């Protein structure tokens, strides 16, 4: 097992800059999710860690050893592909044993380890089946079997659940996490699905346009987003953004939003007068007649225990999460209030979050 350290990794394909100065560390035994929309460079980053692509610049260290330019076969890692990449001309047993064959391990030892891997993944009964007849979840288990049988330094997974149906995906999320807890293997997992990332990861690295926007625990990613993109990408529905123009003093505990003062976590840096954005999670919006923002109810989405209420305001459409016991009429005028200790403020030009007391609670990444 190993620590993976990625430093200032850059990758260009011709004129396309796929990954820009990506840096993060995955500690020994940690489960890191690379999360981002498609085309953000997360898969390219993973493939560079695997050795399937060579970086344009930057370094990759496995347990301190610089492996940036090593061949994939010399890195001692396992990779699980989205489409499983099971060899169709081999049965399950030979597929799982394939990596061991290369190491010159004796047939008896190989078989022992294949059987052991199959037992862990509960596919012992499938060992002599052809891979082409397997269901999606079983194919995924075989692909995992091929990864764990070798006891590699770390696991890299490229959207391994992307090809499964929703129900199977739910089950596999728990299985994967349980497998990780059992093996304690350093894992880097690429996904575009925030629910997968939230459910499985110790830490999440959010990527956008080739840039790592934030690396933090799922809780910090959600509660203390480092940028407008992260705040917008994570959460469903995403964070509400209220644009305003103001300067900010260090230590300020309120901002001027329209006619009213809004209490915020104390600012830890000063900003000259500029375009700023106030970020509010839908669940931190409260309905009160004395609210600082007024608007008209546009519609509601019923979600069972809660409902999402869309309110048209001076700042655009805001979404609020409210207990479903309360009823709203379309067109009704309501007042909205925000929970002060949870608000984020962003610099609109750079998208960066302004440092406030909010960010002192969590571990920084």
């Amino acid at each position, binding site marked *: 097992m190993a620590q993976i350290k990625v430093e200032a990794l850059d990758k260009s394909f011709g004129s396309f800059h796929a990954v820009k100065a990506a840096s993060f560390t995955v500690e020994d035994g940690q489960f890191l999710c690379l999360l981002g929309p498609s085309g953000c460079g997360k898969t390219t980053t993973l493939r560079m860690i695997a050795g399937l692509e060579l970086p344009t610049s930057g370094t990759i260290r496995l347990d301190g050893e610089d492996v940036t330019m090593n061949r994939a*076969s010399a890195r001692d890692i396992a990779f699980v592909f989205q489409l499983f990449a099971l060899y169709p001309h081999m049965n399950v047993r030979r597929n799982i044993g*394939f990596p061991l064959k290369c190491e010159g391990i004796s047939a008896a030892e190989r078989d022992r380890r294949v059987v052991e891997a199959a037992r862990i993944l509960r596919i012992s009964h499938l060992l002599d089946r052809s891979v082409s007849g397997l269901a999606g979840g079983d194919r995924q288990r075989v692909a995992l079997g091929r990864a764990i049988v070798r006891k590699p330094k770390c696991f890299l997974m490229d959207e391994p659940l992307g090809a499964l149906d929703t129900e199977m995906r739910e089950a596999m999320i728990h299985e994967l996490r349980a497998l990780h807890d059992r093996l304690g293997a350093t894992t880097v997992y690429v996904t575009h699905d925030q629910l997968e990332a939230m459910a499985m990861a110790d830490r999440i690295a959010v990527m956008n346009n080739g840039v790592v926007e934030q690396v933090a625990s799922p809780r910090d990613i959600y509660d203390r987003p480092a940028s407008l993109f992260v705040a917008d990408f994570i959460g469903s529905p995403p964070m509400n953004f209220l644009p305003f123009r103001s300067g900010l003093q260090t230590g300020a505990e309120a901002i001027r939003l329209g006619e009213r003062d809004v209490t915020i976590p104390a600012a830890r840096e000063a900003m000259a007068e500029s375009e700023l954005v106030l970020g509010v999670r839908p669940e931190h919006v409260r309905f009160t007649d004395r609210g600082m923002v007024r608007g008209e109810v546009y519609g509601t989405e019923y979600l069972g225990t809660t409902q999402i209420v869309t309110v048209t305001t001076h700042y655009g459409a805001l979404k609020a999460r409210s207990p479903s016991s309360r009823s709203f009429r379309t067109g009704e005028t309501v007042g909205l209030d925000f929970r002060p200790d949870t608000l984020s403020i962003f610099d609109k030009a750079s998208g960066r979050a302004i440092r406030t007391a909010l960010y002192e609670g969590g571990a920084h990444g």
Partner: protein
Amino acid sequence: MTSATTAHSVVEPSATTRRFAGSLVVLYAIITMIPLVWIMLTAFKSPDDAISYPPKVMFKPSLEGFCNLFTTRSRQTPEFIRSLGPPQGLCDSIARSRNMVVAGPSNYVPRFVNSLIIAFGSTVLAVALGTLSAYGFSRFRVPLKDDLLFFILSTRMMPPIAVAIPIYLMYRTIGLSDTRLGMILLYTSVNVSLAVWLLKGFIDEIPREYEEAAMIDGYTRFQAFVKVVLPQATTGIAATAIFCLIFAWNEYAFAVLLTSGNAQTAPPFIPIIIGEGGQDWPAVAAGTTLFLVPIVVFTVLLRKHLLRGITFGAVRK
């Protein structure tokens, strides 16, 4: 659901259409088969039956054609023939009935062996080179890739015989005329462009993840190619091999021009089998019939792949 349970299916052809299409195919097959059947019939005719007019469909079968194909004979006086002992074998007795004796084996077998060596040799070489370069073109960023591929294809745009004279002169100078090696190299160079293009299509369809998985598991790229890519490309390789073999097996023009003795293949040899009073048609027909056997066997063995090979690329996954 079958067409019986639905009143009218939009996608399934009706029974009448299917019968009509079926009979067209059968008719076409019959028309195509007639020359072949005629050749096989002629192979078992006597020389007189072979050239009789009107042509005989019913006749007394004879193995004279095959005997004449495999032997050379010389005419003798009846007295001399009577002085010989009893005939040795069937061919000898047929020859004696025509006042001839068997003088020795003909050149058919060595020519046939030449054909086998040259056709299979060039097929193996063309497919091997084609697979490697198709893999390279499919997987690597080759500079000027499109131009190179077009250049490779363009070698097939003119009839190969257009370069026959330069090749003849060149082969004479470097001593490749009338050698098996020369013919193997020649057919390989004609076939390799076809092989590269066909196989590139097949290899493009094999996801890269398979090799990447193997390389991460500790194999070198070449090992991954052999253990993972080749087994999945067998269909394409088989189809390509059949196309290459058919070309090399049937090639006539270069064989006439560049071979005369040592390396002569069967196609230029068969039509010039001379009997008494001109062409020995039953022998020619017998030679042609036997000449068809290897290609039929090879095609039947690989027929599953061939169908897939002809329609490749038509359906995406």
